[in-house]
């Protein structure tokens, strides 16, 4: 299972980076989203996958028997997903506004703030 997930994560990183290298603004955002998913999954996997062993102390017992699933990474991922969601929503609005302003989805045309000879 871990091996399969590792391959999935690698593929997600690769796909994300590939999308970021494209010239389209929408693909850039899609690439960033994929990268975010890849790092979330990575956090999930580094804590070792433990199935059907919740970190709960059974009634009457003094502690949890090993092995049990680590709850911390899941809390981290939840936080990261929520933050990522907010940022992605903002990104979509921003790209839409930028598309309206530039009238083009091509990142090579987004140069108004880079060139020394252009005055705004």
């Amino acid at each position, binding site marked *: 299972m871990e091996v399969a997930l590792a391959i999935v994560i690698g593929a997600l990183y690769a796909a*994300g980076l590939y999308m*970021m290298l494209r010239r389209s*603004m929408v693909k*850039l*955002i899609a690439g*960033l989203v994929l*990268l*975010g998913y*890849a*790092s*979330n999954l*990575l*956090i999930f996997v*580094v*804590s070792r996958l433990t199935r059907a062993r919740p970190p709960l102390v059974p009634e009457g017992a003094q502690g949890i028997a090993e092995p049990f699933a680590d709850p*911390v*990474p899941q809390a*981290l991922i939840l*936080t*990261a997903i929520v*933050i*990522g969601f*907010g*940022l992605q929503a*903002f*990104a979509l609005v*921003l*790209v839409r*506004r*930028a598309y309206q*302003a*530039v009238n083009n989805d091509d990142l090579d045309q*987004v*140069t*108004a*703030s*880079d060139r*020394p000879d252009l*005055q*705004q």
Partner: protein
Amino acid sequence: MLPILIPFLMAILSIINWGNRVLHRFLALAGSVGLLFAALALLTTVNEQGILSSNIGDWPAPFGIVLVADLPAAIMILMAAIVGLAVLVYATASMDKGRERFGYYPLILLLLMGMCGAFLTGDLFNLYVWFEIMLIASFALLALGGSRAQLEGSVKYFALNLLVSAFMLTGIGLLYGMTGSLNLAALAQTLRAAGPEQPVTTVAIFFMIAFGIKAAMFPLYFWLPASYHTPPVAVSAIFAGLLTKVGVFALIRVFTLLFVQDTAWTHGLLLAGAALTMLSGVLGAMAFDDIRRIFAFHIISQIAYMVLGLALFVPMALAGTIFYMVHHILVIVSLFLVSGLIARAGGSYFKAQLGGLYGTRPLLALLFLVPALSLSGVPPLSGFWAKLTLLRVTLAQELWLVAAIALLVGLLTLFSMVRIWLSAFWGPPGPAAASVTPMRAGERRALYGSTLALVTLTLALSLFAGPAFELAERASEQLLDPAGYIAAVLGEGS
């Protein structure tokens, strides 16, 4: 706790009363004055009692989230408070109604809150969360207004910062997988005990790239000059002064506390990066005509001096870095505020359109000259002491090439400042001067008052460089001796 709570409370109150511009102004000013007092109190307490640590929700460290106030963090919070107050006063007179109505003040407060959180936190994942809070506030500030250049700058800034988040999360995940903890003090302990078979340096590079993009290090700085000049001055000044410094601070934090296993490689990389950043930043500044963009490039080359101090990794150099940060925050914010004043008095941000301001606005000329000379390191101003310290350590370590680059960059900075001086302040009035409207008295008080206060602080820092440097030295000792930090967080004897 207070430095985080005060801006947060004021921002919440502002959001509840959305659309009430006068109340927003009042709340923002009250919040930043409160923040200033809280920061001063924190600095004196930390200075007297040593490192303070507070467990949020009373979960004992390393399981809960801790806030840790050591000297470097307290100094940075004080700087954030000073700059926040000055910029907000400046904004009351220069911000347009639309931006005020759409939440400029609460956004600045949230930005300040995120910064204080990032300076204070003692938990790596919590640092990520504070970074995101800062980011979302800065995105909104950058895009507010919605002109074409602003939107384009925002897209670039946004894309790179999301990349930073992904890198940081990856690094955090790998680190957690290796050590099972995210508390900085606990990590410092386990990583020091880690054997060579652990890929610590690989993870270190993840963090170096993430914070390097934040701090605008070579070759990761292209987002900065593409975006910083697009929003109004009262936004770009606070970005210029503080946002990149948070990146530098995070670099300093993790590369003194956590990643000191292979300093020859990691800090050597930082050293090379610093030298190249210096050079490319100052050369970039030569190409542009827009004053704000020239200053933006100077941020990059000056950031490099701070990274240089970290890369040299001796107490003296780190003290120089902290002193440099304080100096540079004051100077670059004054310069951005002055650039706004120049545009107000001369009608344009472009050098070619300006001229003759020395004749009509002698006070403005003085306000430009002091931080400009300080930036390029002319004695006896604060930049000179900062650069002198770093150069002496560089020479003591016999890094001749780096020292030569640092000197050359100082000279080129001076050259670039003199060029602005020549075209904007000397000669006949420029073609843009015709469009200038006279300032109202209240506007003049707010704009000149806030800039003058920062320039006075720069002068004070130059005159009292001795005591300030002693404070910076103590701060650097705290940074280089993690035992104190660990003891403060995890308790004595651990």
